[in-house]
């Protein structure tokens, strides 16, 4: 009798454990994204302009350097930060400046952001500044796009075509 009770008791303990595992391994359901919305992802990795243009090196500077290592031009590698502005339906939703990556500030500036929007047609405008804002935008993009619920659209930069694109 006691043996049967023990087995029952153990079964009960295992049952409780299995219920906890079985339930929480998939429940409650989670909604990471509001139904009926779409998502615009801005992902641009773009190098800003060099801060200083290359200059010819003075001849006396070259004297101590072996001939094979001589460089005629001096090109400081540091780049400008890049600024991107994004407007959706005339409203500025993003305006950020990103430092160049890399230890000597010579890499690309990285942007990655998400913007949930209602499904429907939207006017997307993007401006990209490779240097100071005062110089004006180097790349511009404007388009009306239609997004269905759940769609993901990506704003990116195509380095070969040298243009902002939308997909």
């Amino acid at each position: 009798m006691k043996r049967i009770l023990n087995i029952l008791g153990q079964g009960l303990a295992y049952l409780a454990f299995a219920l906890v595992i079985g339930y929480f391994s998939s429940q409650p359901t989670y909604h990471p994204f509001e139904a009926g919305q779409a998502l615009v992802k801005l992902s641009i990795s773009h190098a800003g302009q060099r801060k200083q243009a290359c200059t010819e090196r003075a001849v006396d500077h070259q004297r101590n350097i072996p001939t094979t290592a001589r460089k005629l031009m001096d090109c400081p590698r540091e780049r400008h930060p890049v600024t991107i502005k994004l407007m959706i339906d005339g409203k500025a939703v993003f305006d950020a400046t990103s430092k160049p990556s890399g230890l000597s500030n010579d890499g690309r500036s990285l942007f990655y952001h998400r913007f949930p929007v209602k499904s429907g047609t939207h006017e997307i405008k993007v401006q990209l500044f490779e240097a100071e804002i005062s110089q004006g935008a180097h790349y511009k993009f404007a388009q009306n796009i239609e997004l269905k619920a759940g769609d993901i659209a990506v704003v990116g930069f195509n380095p070969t075509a040298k243009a902002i694109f939308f997909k």
Partner: protein
Amino acid sequence: MLKNIQLPLQAVLLKFEGWFDNPFGPEWNPLRHLGALSFFFFWVVAVSGVYVYIFFETSVSGAFQSVESLTHDQPYIGGIMRSFHRYASDAMVVTTFIHLAREFVMDRYRGVRWFTWFTGVPIIWLLYASGIGGYWLVWDELAQYLMIASAEWLDWLSIFGEPLANNFLTPEAFKDRMFSLLLFLHIAIPLFLLIACFIHVVKISRPRINPPKGLAIGTLIMLTVLSLVKPAVSHGPANLDKVVVNVELDWFYAIAYPLFDMWGAGALWLIALTLSIFIACLPWMPKLTFQEAAEVDNLNCNGCSRCYADCPFGAVTMQPRTDGRPYPRIAQVDPDICTSCGICVGSCPTATPFRSQEMLITGIDLPHFRLTKLRADTDASLDRLPDVLPEGAPRIIIYGCDHGIDVDKIESANVVVTSLPCIGMLPPSFIDYILMKEKADGVLLTGCREGDCYHRFGIHWTEQRLSGERDPYLRKRVPKERVWTCWGAVTDNAKLKQQIDDFSTHLKNLPTSQEAAE
């Protein structure tokens, strides 16, 4: 302060754990095998993982379908293996965290145990990385959600150059090469987890890394039934052109993802790192200091190595002898890992109360609680017992230990108490000594709950010494029916009272030594 947190939690834990003692018995009580159960679940995950891997297709386009066909087209075995893989992983999270909490509540993580605790922290990270990495491979909507969120979380560190999340921007961006990397991670990280688990127990002598058979079988039956009733299934296939709106999260592994969505990557890094550092530093908040370490006496140690075999913390090593005595080796104690439990004293053949010297010099002894003191305390306790009791009530001496049942207020006219650091410190010759003197009619040994000795092996060795399986054993001439044990936690006072009553009745019905002689 710390005790104020630990003690109430301990009371709850012990109560809860006590319920499991009935159906499972103290030996199978799952709450006393949490580390071993975690190991066991790891093996289940590993074996089922190998099976699932055989049918897995490592490509963005093929992975989802291969898992689907494993689940639905293989009669039972594939589906069960997949479910085993998932549910054993989940179970491992549960047992690991209860294991961690238990070690904390029972105060078994400070002092010499710091290393074991400290190395547990990377285990948690590796466990999570293993589990979440597994969910990516299915490449369903859940995988997509977890993958992108994980990439965005890691990108916050900006150490990868190009954001990792760019690999998942569009269906074209996600390449098979990346997928192979994910598979590689899901094999490599669990391997590191296994290595970390072994490092975790490397400083524990005789770690229990396998659960008792009964528990292993019960667990496998449970997993099988769960796998049949609720097989693990996938979400719809991933589609990087579409947002994931609903996910049936595995909350054991993915609990941090909703927090990530709410608070962002920076906050989550802060929480994860602060929590990890906090947990890792707990053994020093505050630090646990033990009494002085055990000392070896060169003249009395004959190098029998019993203390070396019995020390539960591996603090004793046997060294070559240099003092010219005719034994090849001598015991040496590493004071940094000695907990002053005295179990080595209980094992030493020189530790006997029968010698007539005032000072008992033993091969190994505790400076703060010498064997001489144990004998003096025992004698003093026996002196408190009357020579004859009215109504012939039997006289009982109880040995209590610092961590088990609270014996403080249990003394009465016919019951006396002596305490020692761990019941494993008691050389069985003391029982002989007491019963020979005929000052007490029975000896009751107490300690922690069975299978749960604070000093790990105090109870186990005591049981073996009493039953003659382990040196030094209780001599044959000792009437075993006059020696009882009562194992229980601090909170088990009622059990002790009951045991004393039962023992008294039992002793009363035994013939006295004169009667026995006649």
